């Protein structure tokens, strides 16, 4: 069949579209709908129960890969094996915890395995880290709530004195609690440091409405696409269940300015708080596609497609228009899988 589309093989991780979903399956659905690419999808999984492994209409072949904690040497070794069978053109990592390693081996993947990625470098990746986001915002003209990184209870008390309540106590990786008094804050410090270790972040609380933007930068200062979304319903795990694309020119301008100023390369999710005064505070910058990225596709901007094109050396036109007022509503559905498939992925590591 000659569809006129460019054939290519894309490896995608994050096949865990469970109740706290990874972005892999939404990325794959977007790629499947590409009008420019004819994709073969290679799934990369960490666990034998990631649902994407069993969605054969979306994922052509899957391989288990070692956990990030096993190190880049193990990861490279595994990818070398996978590439001896597949001809992966582009790889899109979608897990926070795996990004560091993939960024680190990106040049090796390109040079020795001919696998392309489209990721920020380590310096850019680290620069937007939670602990230094305030400085990052200052550098690129975006407001970020002030925060203190503290290692001891004594430092925490000192930082509390410089704040007005409520304050937000945040964990190194995850978790955040709003505290309305010193007692509450200290109890949150204990709870969060026990769970996630030190340091703990103490952050100024910004009251307002959360708005998120999924963005794609080309790494040379152009914003290739951006779609803003407001969550309509949040699960008890804090994940969006439903959301709607919104029209907010100030927010779009701000997002574009940030991506252009930072020369951001690759996908990212910008989490903003629109304060009661109408100011936008950048709360977090996640250096990957969000799990709701399929909404962007549904609104007319296929970001995963554009990313694959850029990774392959094309220069897609920046997308500036999108449909406002389109919703995504998540649903879950049970796959019926014979035990043999689970056996295959568990014992052979491929399916």
């Amino acid at each position, binding site marked *: 069949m000659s569809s006129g589309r460019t054939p290519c093989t894309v490896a995608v991780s994050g096949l865990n579209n469970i109740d706290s979903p990874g972005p892999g399956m939404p990325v794959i659905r977007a790629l499947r709908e590409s009008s420019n690419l004819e994709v073969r999808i290679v799934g990369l999984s960490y666990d034998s*129960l990631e649902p994407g492994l069993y969605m054969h209409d979306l994922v052509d072949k899957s*391989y288990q890969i070692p956990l*990030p904690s*096993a*190190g880049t*040497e193990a990861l490279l070794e595994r990818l070398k094996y996978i590439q001896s069978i597949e001809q992966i053109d582009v790889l899109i990592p979608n897990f926070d915890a795996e990004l*560091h*390693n993939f960024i680190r081996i990106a040049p090796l993947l390109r040079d020795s395995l001919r696998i392309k990625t489209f990721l920020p470098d380590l310096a850019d990746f680290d620069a937007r880290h939670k602990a230094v986001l305030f400085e990052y915002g200052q550098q690129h003209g975006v407001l970020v709530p002030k925060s203190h990184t503290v290692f001891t209870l004594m430092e925490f008390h000192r930082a509390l004195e410089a704040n007005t309540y409520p304050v937000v106590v945040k964990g190194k990786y995850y978790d955040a609690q709003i505290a309305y008094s010193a007692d509450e804050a200290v109890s949150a410090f204990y709870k969060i440091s026990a769970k996630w270790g030190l*340091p703990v972040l103490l952050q100024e609380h910004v009251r307002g409405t959360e708005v998120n933007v999924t963005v794609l930068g080309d790494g040379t200062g152009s914003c290739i696409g951006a779609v803003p979304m407001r969550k309509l319903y949040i699960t008890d795990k804090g994940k969006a269940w439903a959301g709607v694309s919104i029209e907010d020119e100030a927010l779009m301008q701000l997002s574009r300015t940030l991506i252009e100023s930072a020369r951001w390369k690759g996908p990212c999710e910008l989490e903003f708080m629109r304060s009661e005064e109408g100011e936008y505070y950048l709360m977090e910058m996640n250096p990957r596609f969000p799990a709701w990225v399929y909404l962007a596709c549904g609104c007319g901007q296929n970001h995963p497609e554009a990313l694959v094109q850029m990774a392959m050396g094309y220069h897609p036109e920046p997308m500036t228009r999108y449909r406002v007022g389109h919703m995504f509503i998540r649903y879950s559905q049970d796959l019926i899988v014979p035990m043999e498939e689970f056996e295959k992925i568990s014992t052979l*590591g491929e399916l």
Partner: protein
Amino acid sequence: MPLKTYERPYLRKLNAGLGNKFGTRNSQVPVTEIDGVPVAKLMEEYGSPCFVLSEQTIRQTYRNAVRAFSTRYPKVQMAWSYKTNYLNAVCRIFHDEGSWAEVVSIFEYRKALANGVPGTQILFNGPDKSEDDLRTAVQHGSLIHIDHLDEVYLLSEILASEGLKARVALRINMDTGVYPLWDRFGFNYENGSAWTAVTKVMAQPRMELVGLHCHIGTYMLSAQAYAVASHKLCDLADEIRKQYQRRIEYLDLGGGFASGNTLKGSYLQGSDVIPTMDDYAEAITSTILQHPFAMSGEIPTLYLESGRALIDDAGYLLGSVLALKRLGDGRRATIMDFGVNLLFTSFWYEHRISPAQEYSSHHEDMVLYGPLCMNIDVVRENVSLPLLKRGDRVVVHRVGAYNMTQWMQFIQMRPNVVLIDRQGQVHLIRRRETVDTLNEMELTPLHLELGQGKPA
């Protein structure tokens, strides 16, 4: 029909959320030789356990560090940190490569002298320098890095009584944005103690303040912290230049550069997150070169006292399996013939351990215990290894730093240490201890001599 190779039966429950074994082959890949010498042969000849050092790796690592700094900065001098590994053979390799000596006790000082290091090329650091120690250092013209004010006064008296002068440096501690802040050594920069110390030393006619020293921490994961430290040292040097018209000759940025070991509690592998020697070098040298102090006259010599990052990779510990057992909760436990007595660093590292013979792809999670009859003797709390059996050999990686100085003679004697030279020749560089090694130090009161007391 020939018999099949035996591998003990194995059963592993497939649970969700435990990851998978695919691609973790590198924890299974056997390490059968070190620098071309078979591990089995080393253990047959020198016993189990046994420490092995690679001269090739030591020299390569050292040269890489020198390259990283000297291609960015014109005046660099390394000083081998004796406490990291003071086996004479190791020290002599570093000295042969051009390294001076950095010592923190008179015992190390004497080792350095005996290793042929001229007194003027020894940096004497640390809080413990007795009157005799200081006198020895002064007589040999060594660089004395002052840790506290008591030392300034003591040294002043010695210099007066000896009628000699000393070249000194001040150890400075400071906030570089990393935790924990090492403020117990030297004089604090932020609270003004450092400047007070400068004025005290400058008032001593027999002391020549030639250097500033800092050592901001250990296993530093941020190269940026060294930029902050370099900047503060330069600020201090510049202030001394302005106030006293004295030019500081050298800045000693100490050590603390990380090795590729994985710290306990770290999610990612150490080798994936540590800065490279070039990262450290770039942070330090670019800061100094751009500072007004360096531009105001002759640039200071940069001293470095890196220990861990220069020797860790070159050290291996070879050992064997003593026994296997099941713990009360069903977990597999493996008992090795080496433990925390030899591997002090296993208190903070998750050491990489490789089998030294072939296995199938099956592996199991286990606790790795040492041989001591002490509950603290745990080498790895959870490690995935092939189906080991009694007598199987393993190789522990990156053990060159601190283990051969902090090892304990507790329950077991210390084992042989060998060095593989660049031609692949194996040299015994420290003999295994015996019961005589211990008994030689002991004295028995006459009334406890056997046959001297009451009749049995």
